């Protein structure tokens, strides 16, 4: 009979073969991981299409920079959306929150205090509204779909009221904000760096901290998380606040890009962001997913649009092709997901 006395704890073991899961956790090898293979293949195919159809325009630095700049705004939001969805929720209000934050930050009253305060204002508005979402969902126990839909509607309304439905230009004194989009370091606009920074920070938060681990737990099995001593409600609330914060950051980027704040900014971003996250392999039911997948999913979308415009296709054909490409990309991806078989 065996007496498995629990051995004295934990001298970090270095021995043995590297555990297979360890690969998942390495930022670089994560890219090459099987589950992202389909996405990479799809991305590769699109790039080939670009090179073949528009050899002179596609592979230029300026076009690549342009693609990244286009992806930046919604990319930042996608990072937040990934957290919310892994945490078992959904945030339909992202586009509207970005609009509200951009409008609030560009009111005359705010603009008086200069670009720094405008940025802070956008971040606070985004985070605050996200917090309201979180409170309604975590403590008011509203279904996330409904709570954030209500927020979508209300935030757009508020943004329209606040701006009197006008496009609010950034005043000449505050062009430092616009510099985010026009100033380039090593040929790349600052806002692309901000995008990259948000992705990296998001990746670290999700994969290297207790917050990230709890996010997976809360989304995967909230009851188990609760019984394991995790404050599921508080965590849920924080997830929506985080999503709101990314909307605030996105608002700063869109203000820099368009030199305006407007209640029409971010229309239908919610669908794009959620689609990118899901194409990236995150489950809508929560508990699973990666930031890298989401960003790859988003880049596929952005690339499709770029290719169509480069080739001068009209929107109708674009839409049809987009539908087909989404299906193909996901089928490709599914092929590499044997684990998820029936």
């Amino acid at each position: 009979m065996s007496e498995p006395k629990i051995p004295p704890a934990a001298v970090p073991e270095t021995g043995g073969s590297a555990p297979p899961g360890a690969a998942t956790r390495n930022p670089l090898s994560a890219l090459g991981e099987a589950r992202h293979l389909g996405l990479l293949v799809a991305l590769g195919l699109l790039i080939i299409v670009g090179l073949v159809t528009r050899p002179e325009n596609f592979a230029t630095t300026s076009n690549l920079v342009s693609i990244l700049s286009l992806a930046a705004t919604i990319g930042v939001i996608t990072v937040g959306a990934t957290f919310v969805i892994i945490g078992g929720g959904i945030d339909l209000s992202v586009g509207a929150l970005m609009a509200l934050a951009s409008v609030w930050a560009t009111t005359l009253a705010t603009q008086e205090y200069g670009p720094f305060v405008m940025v802070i204002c956008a971040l606070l508005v985004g985070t605050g509204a996200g917090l309201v979402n979180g409170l309604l969902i975590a403590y008011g126990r509203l279904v996330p779909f409904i709570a954030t839909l209500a927020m979508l509607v209300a935030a757009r309304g508020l943004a329209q009221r606040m701006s009197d439905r006008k496009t609010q230009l950034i005043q000449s004194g505050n062009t430092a904000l616009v510099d985010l989009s026009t100033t380039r370091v090593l040929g790349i606009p600052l806002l692309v760096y901000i995008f990259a920074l948000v992705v990296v920070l998001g990746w670290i938060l999700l994969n290297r901290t207790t917050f990230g681990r709890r996010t997976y737990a809360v989304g995967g099995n909230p009851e188990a998380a609760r019984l394991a001593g995790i404050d599921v409600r508080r965590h849920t609330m924080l997830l929506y606040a985080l999503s709101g914060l990314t909307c605030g950051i996105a608002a700063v980027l869109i203000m820099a890009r368009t030199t305006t704040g407007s209640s029409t900014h971010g229309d239908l971003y919610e669908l794009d962001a959620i689609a990118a996250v899901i194409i990236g392999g995150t489950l809508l039911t929560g508990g699973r997913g990666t930031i890298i997948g989401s960003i790859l999913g988003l880049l596929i979308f952005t690339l499709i649009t770029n290719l169509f415009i480069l080739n001068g296709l009209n929107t109708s054909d674009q839409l049809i092709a987009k539908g087909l490409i989404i299906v193909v990309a996901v089928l490709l991806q599914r092929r590499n997901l044997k684990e998820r078989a029936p």
Partner: protein
Amino acid sequence: TSNEPAEPASSAAPAPAPAASGNDEPGTKVVIGFSAPAADHGWIAAIAKNAEAAAKQYTDVEFKPVEPTNDINQQISAVESLIAAKVNALVILPNDGQQLNQVALQATAAGIPVINLDRVFPDKLAYRTWIGGDNYGMGVAAGHFIGKSLKDKGVADPVIVEIQGIATLPLTQDRSKGFEDALKTYGFKVAAKQDAQFTVETGNEVAASLLQAHKKIDALWNHDDDQGIGVLAAIKEAGRDEFIMVGGAGSANAMKEIQAGTSVLKATVTYSPTMAASAIKLARLIAQGKGMSDLLENQVPQSITLASETITKENVDKYLPLGFES
């Protein structure tokens, strides 16, 4: 742009012309119903504001706007509710003239004169008077400005790019047709066109990619000054200035850019939202059974098409007060 320090008489409807014939004197009290698409961007917002402002000038007008919406189904309901409320005249800017034709017919059948604003009903029985802009003419004006400028510069085989508004609207298609036809007279054609959604952001996105697709452009026509803000931002970001740009609609912001003359925007062709104020005035006259005092006829004419004017650095001062804030 609402942030500009108070511009004199910017977007409000121009003050009524001196009442020579007494048409502005109070008459019988009339209720005017008003339905338009959702005011989610500058031009339509200006439409709603101009209508309301015009109505406020008259003590004998009760203005009854209904919830603006982009859903056709809801706009039908909205008009139905105005018919049920038995207003004296209806001003309708339909989301789509064809789709609202039926309900306009109903209104006419119920004895309510319909003043069709801008997007036209296909059935003449459906409205009493139409007043609107000239979308085809707008394209023509833009085409002529660009054609002439390029001809003068002696550019052969120019790259001309077009950024449209919402592609599914008939007005977009009319504008493009006019543009194409006008360019043809110079032997030019459009090299590329893409549609945006009348918003700053979509204008910005489309322009950013179009600029990548064409390394050298000679002229660009952007259908709408609202989305034009985004287009200009994209041009600035890309650091491009080798071409001329023409706007559309005539927002105050675009006019100021033209006035300053520092950007690629050299002209804009008007599509003035002041037509909403005129429509309210016409509705009042029709409901009160009056004619237009400058005309000999006893009744308001059946249709009035506004001319699309070209605003350039030379004449911008004259137009600036009429520019709407996008």
